[in-house]
């Protein structure tokens, strides 16, 4: 269940309270997010929509601990993250968050296998255990036969699948996807959305996705609309 009214709903996985994010441009203060409240339960698939500059990506960055809020609190899986040190936040990200970007952001010098293995290099897993996890993640996204391929040997859709495998390989608490279909054609885009749906349905993952695509957004359980840094509407997906 997703709530945007600031009222606690039991043991929400992500709890955001009175979140503000401001930037300074010279003497001008720009309010990107203002007084935002949000509760997301485990196993939810949430889509954020809104015009450019409405604060969607900023919200995602804050939820993922890539940026720090100007005010307010973010609690994820019981841990309040906005006051964590850089080192602690890095460890928290490694443990709890999987990121999927619009441009895939794979390392071109690494094979699909090595790209997916990256987050596991930070764990104490043995080499054989890492291999097992990577093979499983790649099989979930349907790319077991592309392990040794480099990003430039893969299609856009396949690259995004590798990126998703990298996001899930360490079994994170939730996934943050920033326009994951934005650089793909309709067919490949829908395959990615279906993959995310499967991760939610079959692997009980929590997915928060920013998108401009209403068809992709409709696949989510809940669509949250942002405008000028505030959540203005919540609608049910299909």
């Amino acid at each position: 269940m997703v709530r945007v009214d600031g009222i606690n709903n039991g043991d929400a996985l992500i709890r955001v309270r009175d979140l503000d994010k401001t930037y300074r441009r010279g003497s001008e203060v720009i309010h990107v997010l203002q007084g935002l409240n949000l509760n997301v339960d485990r196993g939810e698939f949430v889509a954020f929509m809104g015009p450019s500059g409405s604060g969607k990506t900023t919200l995602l960055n804050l939820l993922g601990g890539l940026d720090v809020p100007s005010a307010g609190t973010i609690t994820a899986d019981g841990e309040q993250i906005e006051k964590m040190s850089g080192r602690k936040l890095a460890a928290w990200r490694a443990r709890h968050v999987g990121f999927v970007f619009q441009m895939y952001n794979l390392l071109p010098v690494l094979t699909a296998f090595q790209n997916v293995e990256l987050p596991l290099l930070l764990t104490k897993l043995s080499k054989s255990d890492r291999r097992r996890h990577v093979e499983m993640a790649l099989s979930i996204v349907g790319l077991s036969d592309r392990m040794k391929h480099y990003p430039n040997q893969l299609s856009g859709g396949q690259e995004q699948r590798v990126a998703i495998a990298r996001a899930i390989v360490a079994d994170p608490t939730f996934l943050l996807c920033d326009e994951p279909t934005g650089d793909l054609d309709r067919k490949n885009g829908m395959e990615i959305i279906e993959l995310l749906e499967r991760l939610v349905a079959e692997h009980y993952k929590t997915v928060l996705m920013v998108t401009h695509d209403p068809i992709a957004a409709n696949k989510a359980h809940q669509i949250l609309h942002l405008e000028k840094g505030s959540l203005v509407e919540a609608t049910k997906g299909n």
Partner: protein
Amino acid sequence: MKFLPLILKNLLRKKIRTSLTILSIAVALFLFGLLVAINSAFTGGIEAAGADRLVIRNKISIIMPLPISYKERVLQINGVTADTYASWFGGVYQDPKNFFPQFAIDKITYLKMYPEYLLPKDQYEAFLADRQGCIIGRTTADRFGFKVGDRLPIRGTIFTGTWEFNIRGIFDGNRPEVDTTPMMFDYEYLSERVSFINGRVGWYIVKIGNPNDAEKVAKAIDQRFSNSNNETITEPEKMFVAGWVKQMGNIRLLILSIGTVVFFTLMLVTGNTMAIAVRERTGELAVLKTVGFTDEATLIIVLVESVAIAVIGGGIGIGLAKLFTLNGDPTHGFLPFFFISPVQMIVGLFVAALVGVVSGIIPAFLAMRLRIVDALRRV
């Protein structure tokens, strides 16, 4: 170790650029190696000089001789345990460019004074038994292919005429710094042929019982011969050799200056390469941080890349320099101690690593300070 594939892949990302950077470092460290070898060549004699030996020379000039009668008088001075003498011969073997030093020596006392010269016993005895006999250092013997038993004709320049010698021995040094270029022969052979030598020798070498007494003994020797026709200057052998080196200009300063310029240029080259590499990979570094790499881990990865490039290049350069010096003195006599010691090789590698650290530290620091959201925006 588990980050090694990532670091290797990054190094091989731009093969030509990495190769050229490694090459530039290799060239610079090759040059560094040669500078070290040249420095050793100039200062090797100083290192090899005995702390318990003093050299007595004529106060007017080294080219002015001293009376042979001083030998017994020097021995009487307190603190002196042994003495010997030598004279510069300055002959030419076939062609002036075939230079190697030649000394007329007091055979028994001179070789006792220099235990660092290693001569087989049978060759030593053959040398003592032959008035025309000579011994030659391994470097010069190898250079001209001399063998024991060969006849060696030398054309005299100070002492004119052709001088015939029998090579009775080939000596080695007991350590690399020992000069094995000289040829030595019996002073008696020189004095019996040259009337103007008239009981005069080039310089004396004195052994003292306690190296700490060097100054006191040197003063006593010079006082003994003050107000005579042949006043002396006595100094420790190290200072005597250093004096020769000094005559060739401030070699150390020159070498240090060139070395510093090379080092600085090298840092700029490597630093520039690393800076470009980091800038190109801004987005990738952001991704690494996004998946949980800490700022410090990012710094270390960039720094290790920089150090790896520098050490590989440095290893190649210093290795090539070592190979180059294995052939010995390229000037055939001017740089008798032309070599690079294992310690100097390690120092070279350390210098290379230092170049890697210094040139990589700013790019690595920038990578560490990189804000993920800013970097991702640039992808």
